[in-house]
């Protein structure tokens, strides 16, 4: 049984078909890449999986459970977590708070719990903080816990965002162009980091990326889409030599 099972999903925005009958099945502990030219519909697929859009057609099942109609926060609770193409941290909250708030859907105390500081409130806040600090330490970010993300360098912000996504112990981690905007030195660090996460945590990683260096060295399996439809699938080496992929990226020089 696949962890994430996307079947024939189509997304229509007015007249524009952003994704057309896209299917994928991700197994436990896989590291899969999703590539394609700009505007191919990659981020839309991520948005569909994380529940931000509801697919026009098709089904998405996570842990064998349909996610149709669920709100994004609900999907997160099931164990899907993600990062964003252009970093979306809460800039006026400390790094530690950023990670704590990501635990929001796990909170079981409500408004009255937080106003009366109930026992459950205190326990949970303690657990959350401990867990957040553990994640920060694991990613070597603990010295930034009280900094504001807006004051951090770009590479560190990327890392904080990954930490935020990772901190809630997801089963599926979706990385949307984690290497965008990084310099070469950061890039090597990022490849090591993703590899390390994949090794260290019981987690499936699904990644959109343009940097071939990252994709080729990390992914076990790559799926290529163009105009919302899959055009190729296979191991990195297979993809590298696939004529359809070359055509999609470089254009059709026969015309």
């Amino acid at each position, binding site marked *: 049984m696949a962890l994430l099972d996307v079947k024939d999903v189509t997304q229509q925005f007015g007249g524009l078909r952003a994704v057309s009958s896209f299917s994928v099945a991700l197994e436990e502990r896989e590291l899969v890449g999703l590539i394609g030219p700009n505007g191919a519909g990659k981020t839309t697929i991520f948005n569909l999986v994380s529940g*931000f859009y509801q697919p026009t057609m098709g089904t998405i099942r996570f842990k064998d459970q349909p996610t149709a109609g669920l709100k994004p926060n609900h999907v997160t609770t099931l164990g899907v977590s993600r990062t964003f193409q*252009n970093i*979306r941290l809460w800039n006026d909250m400390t790094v530690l708070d950023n990670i704590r708030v990501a635990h929001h859907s796990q909170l079981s105390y409500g408004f009255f719990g937080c106003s009366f500081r109930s026992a459950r409130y205190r326990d949970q806040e303690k657990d959350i903080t401990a867990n957040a600090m553990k994640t920060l330490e694991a990613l070597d970010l603990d010295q930034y816990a009280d900094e504001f993300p807006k004051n951090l360098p770009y590479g560190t912000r990327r890392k904080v965002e990954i930490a935020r996504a990772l901190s809630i112990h997801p089963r599926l981690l979706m990385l949307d162009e984690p290497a965008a905007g990084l310099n070469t030195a950061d890039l090597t660090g990022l490849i090591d980091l993703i590899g390390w996460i994949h090794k260290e945590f019981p987690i499936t990683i699904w990644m959109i990326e343009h940097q071939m260096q990252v994709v080729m060295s990390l992914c076990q399996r790559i799926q290529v889409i163009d105009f919302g439809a899959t055009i190729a699938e296979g191991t990195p080496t297979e993809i590298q030599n696939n004529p359809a992929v070359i055509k999609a990226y470089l254009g059709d020089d026969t015309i």
Partner: protein
Amino acid sequence: MPWGGALLASILQNTLNALQWGSFYSLIALGYCLVYGVLLLINFAHGDVYMVGAYIAFFVATFLLASGGLPGWVVLAVTVPITMVLTAAVGVTLERVAYRPLRRKGAHRLYVVVTALMCGIILENGNLALLGAASRAFPELVTTTVFSLGDVKLTNLKVAVIVVAIGSFLILETIVSRTKIGMAMRALSYDRFALPLMGIPPDTVIVFTFVLGSSFAALAGLLFAMSYPVLDPYMGAMVGWKAFIAAVVGGIGEIRGAFAGGFLLGFVEIMVAAFLPSTFRDLIAFTILLFILWMKPTGLFGVARFQKI
């Protein structure tokens, strides 16, 4: 109860009333909309700029009447441009003194909005403090003629107001969509930082926007003063808020939206007062507006700006 012909006459009469009343909302809403479209700033002082316009028109007109012995229509013809220029100067001064420094310092948008709100209060009470409490009567520049079409009564002023409102809308629409500076205005609303890179000075565009908005507010103030000839310092406050509501219901930032929203609000208010118990006018009018926003959360003509994730 009016039946048959009487009902028809009543509907026609109220339609005319609504067109006149909606014209004022539209004219003021256009000013809100211009500034909002360019700066994303709700210029809450706009209603009071319009009040200042009415007062300037009053002083210019009384001065001209007193000094020249000119006929009314000449005075009116001279008053219109002078009022527009002077009021535009007030609008631009507000922009220079209050909003621009904040913008330069990168203040949050809502701080500028609240500053605008405060500027409005300053204008209202400054007027009261300097000119005294007495309301003023606007001189009658053009003799009001009442035309009767059966039971429906029409005045020359009413027709003029409606024509001017529609004309202003057409002029503004042309400026914004056809001229070079209009293009710059639209560009500015999309990307404030790219515009200077294209060689267009954004401050010039902003000043032009304020000139445009304030001078049309002045026009509205002048016409308002002619139609409802009692001027008081607080006359702009309520109309200003309601015109803002109209602009938003139309879809703020859209010229067509502001125009349509103004007339819509005028229609709803007048028709509710006319055909339902007038006691519930505000209640029903605002419920209808809420319902419209519920159906179309970005207003009648507004388009939700797509946010890329």
